[in-house]
């Protein structure tokens, strides 16, 4: 950690500024007389959000899933915060670690810029469509839509967790298959330096049409639920398009940033992105994203995914329970 801070001076500067600002807030913040909550609680929410966001960012970047896939389901399952506020903030959580990790990943040649731009258009269009659909649902169904969102997300999370279990680490270095006509035409081949084995890994990207269609769907789901799309970007790049796991994880972060950047604006102009609530999560993602991006180069990403599988399964059970309760009024013991 000390080496990382020395190697990345801007990280140490950001951490120092954040610590100083939070110390100032903790010492000098005062509540007005009619404040509905105490200053201690308000400061606790701000600093707590930052710390959780930092941890989520590190895990999200290393796992290549972005933070949204952890933040949004956990908040929807375990808090009373409005679903639109959670989903808008979820997109910020999903994208900022990806945004800031773009620098280190591109510098190292871990993220493939051509793969990123090929996949960007379908994921951006899908994410924008998902964000508009979310606003439409909130406008038409109101609170009843919340139950539907929780139930659907719970089911999707189970699917994602199963995808991770089935996938495993067997595709860390997918072997080149016969490239399709489009990837041959676009010459989508790449190479990167693999720190953990001390050598060059080369790869051939393939199945571009299928990958593009899947990214359209992934973008829509990510934009609608505020998950981002990292949970599926890595599997699609890795299993379908035969991109090595580490390049998939690094490119996924950058793709998330691009896709979610388009999806965030409808939420922002709608007013669902409440600045005071979202800003500490954003800051945690920036600092955690830089840390995660530097750690990723030195570890096996597959390990972190096991932690994610457990989180996804537990959260999905709670989400389905709450969804069933809210939609059908049936009491569920674990909800």
């Amino acid at each position, binding site marked *: 950690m000390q080496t990382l801070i020395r190697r990345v001076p*801007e990280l140490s500067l950001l951490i120092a500024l954040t610590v100083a600002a939070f110390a100032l807030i903790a010492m000098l913040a005062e509540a007005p007389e009619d404040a509905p909550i105490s200053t201690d609680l308000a400061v606790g929410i701000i600093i707590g959000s930052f710390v959780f966001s930092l941890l989520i960012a590190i895990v999200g970047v290393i796992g290549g899933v972005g933070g949204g896939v952890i933040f949004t389901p956990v908040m929807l399952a375990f808090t009373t915060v409005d679903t639109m506020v959670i989903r808008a903030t979820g997109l910020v959580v999903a994208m900022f670690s990806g945004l800031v990790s773009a620098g280190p990943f591109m510098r190292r040649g871990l*993220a493939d810029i051509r793969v990123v731009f090929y996949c960007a258009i379908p994921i951006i269009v899908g994410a924008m469509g998902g964000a508009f659909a979310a606003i439409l649902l909130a406008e038409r169904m109101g609170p009843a839509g919340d139950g539907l969102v929780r139930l659907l997300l719970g089911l999707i999370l189970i699917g994602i967790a199963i995808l991770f279990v089935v996938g495993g680490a067997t595709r860390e270095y997918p072997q080149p298959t016969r490239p399709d006509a489009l990837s041959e035409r676009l010459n989508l081949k790449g190479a990167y330096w693999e720190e953990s084995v001390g050598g*060059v890994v*080369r790869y051939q990207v393939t199945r571009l049409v299928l990958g593009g269609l899947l990214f359209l769907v992934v973008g829509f789901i990510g934009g609608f639920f505020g998950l981002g799309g990292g949970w599926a970007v890595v599997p699609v790049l890795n299993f379908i398009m035969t991109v090595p796991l580490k390049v998939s994880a690094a490119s996924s972060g950058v793709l998330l940033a691009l896709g979610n950047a388009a999806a965030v604006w409808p939420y922002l102009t709608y*007013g669902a992105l409440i600045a005071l609530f979202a800003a500490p999560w954003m800051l945690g993602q920036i600092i955690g994203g830089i840390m995660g991006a530097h750690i990723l180069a030195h570890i096996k990403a597959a390990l972190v995914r096991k932690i994610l599988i457990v989180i996804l399964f537990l959260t999905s059970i709670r989400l389905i329970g709450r969804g069933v309760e809210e939609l059908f009024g049936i009491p569920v013991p674990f909800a």
Partner: protein
Amino acid sequence: MEHHSYDDPAGNEMEAVTVAPGSAATTATTGTQTDTTRPQAPLAGIIFGETIYWMTILSGVIALLGITLAMLGRPSLMQPHATLDAILAGHSVTEIWQQLVGGMPDGHWYLSRLTTADGLMGLGLALGVFSVIPAAMSAAWILYRQGWWPFAILAAGAAAVTGVSVLGLIPLPMN
């Protein structure tokens, strides 16, 4: 072992050797490059990444300033304690804005309120999200100059679609 060729970013064909499936990694040898030579990161990627990286860090500093000013009682659009209380209580977006501001926001609301703590936090969030547009445009230009024109078009397209979203050219589906 499987032999196959690949092109470096400059388009020069090189020979590579890939070990059997299940191996830890592949090794490669070429006329000018061995398996111990790090491949160079493409310039378009570096420019794209660095643009986003530094704009995002700047956006984080602006947002941090906004958080600090809000909590220290400087002018805010939404009173911080009341905002957090309304959010924790599960109030809807409409209820939060009506209760704390007296009406829903108008598009890029933070731009006209930059002297408030909320305005600064909003600017920080927006600047970070906006960073992908100049980054994608710069990458598009470099990709075009290097002859990767299909990817230059895709990069410019990504920036254009995001720009449409930023400008709010597609109306929100509201009642």
